[in-house]
């Protein structure tokens, strides 16, 4: 079952061009769908596949699609969320850079399934070079009749355009993305109404992540049931994981969900173990917004079972002893790293990216950043740790969009699991400026892969 579904042909020379992609079996799914499948058939297949949103929340895609309102005479829109800006996550970039046609094929299939004739790819501004790759690929797709009017004689029209953001993390939130696409300030909308009812220009809209859309291609090709054979439990299929941090082989890996975290970190197929033979200290399994896991909870759950790379297993234990699969930004920290500094770094990011609409997130993220900065540089007080805990508690759940939660969770988890380290920063103000906690307290970490 080690077969890859998305990155199968990634090594083929020139796969980013239409001709090579077509030779490798590309656009077969579109041919099949337009000839022999109705839009509802595709939705049905996606439901059967159990595909879950790859953007972070893990919401079942088939269900999301079935929520779309279908009022007579109102156009619907399908949007691709390529505003991948979570620190630690770079899987969509890889996919779009290497096989742009896979995304376009997925866009055609999804738009056909939802009955949308105008679709957009919203890409983050920093990915300007990928925008050019995508535009080239779209032009090729138009030239070969995969886009435009009456695609391959099926009577289905689809116009596809790429729109670039201006570098705001918040525009990855689906309603902020819609606002930004409409040319407004990227402020998240208050839900309800959900985009499925009132989205782009007030029309029913579905927004999906790049990887989710790409996964529709193998689902249509091989059928939803065959896709559901991959993975484990409710985490079906394969998942792209972008591994980074102190590992031997950082990069993007397509994994069959259900392999153990231990295998992912230590096997040579994937990350190849810890760099320089260091010990594992902590791991952020799903991008910066998910709770950090301490070394003793990375490979085993609190109940002592093997932790698997799946939505359920990573979330095992809730936020107390678990985390989330999130968007698949897998960051590994070795014993030398400083968690306080890392938390400060993440919080600085959220402070910078908060849209400033609701007060707890606008003011709270900046406050947390300042307190963490103070702690990291040895000017902190013991009360600051409790203060941080209180601030994150006041932000979490009280904001319009999940950015507030995403800013609060890493701080909460860091304090929960690494409180000692925060206290050390207060007790050793001079030492903590010159040395990382990890380097000073080396002996604390037992190897976990023994």
């Amino acid at each position: 079952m080690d077969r890859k579904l998305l990155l199968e042909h990634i090594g083929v020379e020139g796969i980013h061009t239409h001709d090579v992609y077509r030779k490798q079996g590309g656009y077969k799914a579109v041919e099949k769908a337009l000839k022999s499948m109705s839009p509802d058939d595709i939705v049905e297949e996606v439901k059967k596949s159990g595909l879950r949103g790859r953007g972070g929340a893990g919401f079942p895609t088939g269900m999301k699609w079935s929520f779309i309102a279908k009022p007579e005479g109102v156009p619907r829109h399908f949007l691709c969320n390529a505003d991948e800006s979570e620190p630690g996550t770079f899987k969509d970039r890889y996919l779009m850079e290497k096989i742009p046609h896979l995304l376009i094929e997925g866009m055609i299939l999804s738009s056909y399934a939802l009955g949308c004739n105008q679709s957009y790819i919203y890409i983050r501004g920093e990915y300007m070079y990928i925008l050019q790759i995508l535009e080239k690929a779209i032009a090729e797709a138009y030239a070969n009749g995969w886009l435009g009017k009456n695609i391959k004689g099926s009577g289905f029209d689809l116009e596809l355009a790429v729109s670039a953001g201006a570098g705001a993390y918040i525009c990855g939130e689906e309603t902020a993305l819609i606002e930004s696409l409409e040319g407004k300030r990227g402020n998240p909308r208050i839900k309800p109404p959900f985009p499925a009812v009132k989205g782009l220009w007030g029309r029913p809209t579905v927004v999906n992540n790049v990887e989710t859309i790409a996964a529709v291609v193998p689902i249509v090709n091989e059928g939803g049931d065959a896709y559901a054979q991959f993975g484990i439990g409710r985490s079906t299929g394969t998942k792209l994981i972008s591994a980074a941090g102190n590992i031997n082989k950082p990069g993007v890996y397509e994994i069959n969900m259900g392999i153990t975290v231990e295998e992912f970190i230590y096997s040579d197929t994937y990350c190849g173990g810890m760099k320089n033979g260091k010990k594992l200290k902590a791991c952020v399994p799903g991008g910066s917004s998910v709770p950090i896991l301490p070394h003793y909870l990375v490979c085993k759950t609190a109940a002592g079972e093997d932790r698997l790379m799946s939505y359920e297993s990573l979330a095992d234990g809730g936020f107390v002893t678990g985390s989330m699969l999130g968007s698949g930004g897998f960051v590994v920290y070795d014993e030398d790293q400083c968690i306080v500094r890392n938390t400060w770094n993440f919080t600085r990011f959220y402070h910078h990216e908060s849209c400033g609409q609701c007060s707890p997130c606008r003011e709270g993220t900046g406050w947390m950043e300042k307190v963490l900065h103070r702690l990291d540089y040895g000017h902190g007080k013991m009360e600051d740790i409790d203060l941080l805990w209180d601030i994150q508690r006041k932000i979490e759940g009280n904001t319009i969009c999940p950015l507030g939660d995403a800013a609060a969770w890493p701080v909460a988890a860091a304090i929960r699991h690494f409180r000692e380290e925060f206290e050390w920063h207060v007790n050793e103000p001079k030492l903590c400026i010159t040395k990382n906690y990890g380097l000073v307290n080396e002996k604390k970490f037992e190897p976990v892969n023994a």
Partner: protein
Amino acid sequence: MSETNPKFKVTIDGIEVEVDPGTTILNAARMIGGDVVPPAMCYYSSLEGSGGKCRTCLVEVSKSSEKDPRPMPKLVASCFTPIMDGMEVKNKSSEKVIDARAGVVEMLLINHPLDCPVCDQAGECDLQNLAYEHGKSTTRYEFERRTFDKVDIGEYIKLHMTRCILCYRCVYTANQLTDKREHGVLKRGDAAEIGTFIEKNLKNDFIGNVIDVCPVGALTDKTFRFRSRVWYTKPMDAHRACKCCSSKAVVWMIGDEIARVTARKDQYGEVKEFICNECRFEKKEKSDWIIEGPRHIERSSVISANHYEVDAPVHTPLLNKA
């Protein structure tokens, strides 16, 4: 009538009320009135799209509806959440709400200059009232506060962004009341500011209303700035023959002089009838106005500390009622 228009039952802090479907929790609470009304800093009933931002009106929904009796997982913004039949809402009776609201007030105040002693809004400031009711008397914030330069954004209006809580009310007002909006929110996060793009002037006929909708002292009337504390002036209902607005205004008098003119605000600090710039800024002579009588001010307000002439009893309307 009741068959075609079924009413929804909603219980807020144990008080039941029947409202039309589509009403928000906040408006349902306002129908009950009194203590169960959540405070609102950004919601403004006459401005479409306002609300949901300040998070002071958060309430706990302990029962979603008759059909689905599960509680809502998170606190919800009452100004934006429509009621469902059989919904049960906890405002003041929920500790979670009180705690979250204290948090929001703290967040709103950490970058607020707290320059109430020199602020023209003091005495009629929503943030002041909110902080008095829900806030703490000390702060845990020990860093430098965010400051901005004061900007003149038009002939009559001064913007003091440092005091702003980014409620977006003035943006909606300019969008919906005037024919051209020339200011908006620039930048993001805690660097976000209200501003006119490339120092434009706000000179629309109705733009003065942004001063009235501002819950804090960020937008102030340049014809009144630093002239008097609001509680030394005497508010009188007045009107005049105006071509472009209803001119139902309040004139704030110092002796026989009109110090400033504002629109009439209801008990939730909201203006129902907006007035034009001419009435607001240019008619400052007593002879311009027909004075109807003293404005009723809530007893709890600091403004009611001012003294009226004995021969103009404040409570005449109430006495007549009795």
